[in-house]
């Protein structure tokens, strides 16, 4: 669990290990389930923002996007290392659900029969998708 002390210690003694290169980065996706017919396609939740020249110095939308991706990656790491019942993982899951709800709200999506999200690892070289977690219909 994150605490004020653990946050301070991480900043006082940073690991400078920027990439967990043993794993490919995960992607969060969601899909809507319409009242009738087939479920919609899975769509990415953390999407890129349009880049402008001034984003080299000031990039609030990009920072929000990267913070959201950090959230997804942390949940992925906790899922693998601690399992989904661990308190830290449950805390991350609650934030990931808030992230997915925020994406639905931005898309102005209608409720239909609900929606689902999943965590996948896309290997573009091998053209494969590994599903790490799939939520129940919400």
């Amino acid at each position, binding site marked *: 669990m994150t605490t004020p002390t653990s946050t301070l210690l991480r900043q006082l003694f940073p690991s400078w290990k920027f990439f967990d290169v043993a794993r490919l980065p995960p992607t969060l996706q969601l899909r809507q389930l319409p009242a009738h017919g087939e479920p919609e396609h899975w769509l990415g939740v953390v999407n890129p923002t349009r880049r402008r020249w001034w984003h080299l110095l000031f*990039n*609030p939308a990009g920072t929000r996007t990267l913070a959201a991706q950090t959230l997804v990656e942390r949940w992925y790491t906790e899922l693998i290392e601690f399992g989904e019942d661990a308190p830290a993982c449950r805390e991350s899951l609650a*934030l990931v659900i808030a992230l997915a709800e925020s994406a639905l709200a931005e898309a102005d999506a209608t409720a239909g029969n609900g929606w689902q999200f999943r965590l996948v690892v896309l290997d573009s070289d091998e053209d494969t998708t590994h599903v790490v977690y799939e939520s129940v219909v919400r």
Partner: protein
Amino acid sequence: MSELPALLTSTITWMCRVAALAVAVNALELLTMRGALSDGGIWRAPLLTSSWGAWRVLLGTHAFTVVLVVQLVCAVVMAAAPRTTLGCIAAAALAFTSWLSSLRFRGNVNGGSDAMLFTVLGGLAVAQLPNAATAVHEAGVLYVAAQLTLSYVRAGIVKAKERSWWTGHALSAFLALPAYGIPAWVPRRMPNDRMPLRIVSAGVIGFECLAPVAWFDPVACVAVLTVAFTFHAGTAALFGLNRFLLAWSAALPSLWYAVHRVA
């Protein structure tokens, strides 16, 4: 040796100004995206208060807005009054607000850039301590230079140990990740010709692992500083890592002081 005090003075001044720009940008970005911190946002307080401890009084939606405004004011003070008692207090206050921002986001806002900025601000607080010996001020700057070098070497070693970095696979995966918003003109997948990705990956590993040479020769230091700035500007342009560019730019002058102290 006689030029060192003047160099130390100008190094601290430059670091204060660039670090002030970095923390001001951080505060303005968080103020711009404060909807994501509101009760209906992603990082809504009720989901996070358990990790805030007693600091929750400063991290609620309205209180945190005040913290960010204070951060902006302190940034202006540090830029305007480097090497003064006021500058020292501003640097320490900014290290504190940077830590609060990390806590607000459950540990970090933007990965390693939070830690580097915290390191720079802590070093600058020490480097501006009133009535302290020059050696103490030097220690503040050299601490930043040491952490800066360590940041490159550690990252380089981690990459060098991974085969996926040498083959270009790891870089390809990061380029393909939607969150980074790689500009359309950059080819994201190169299944038939991996050589450019291999060359770039090997170049980054080489630069990061060789960064310590900057401590021992001024020419090598200029080369490392040039490559480092280009590298961070490149990652800001490609991956949107503007906070890394600003945080590391605030630390880079410390390396120039280090080489004159050591060489």
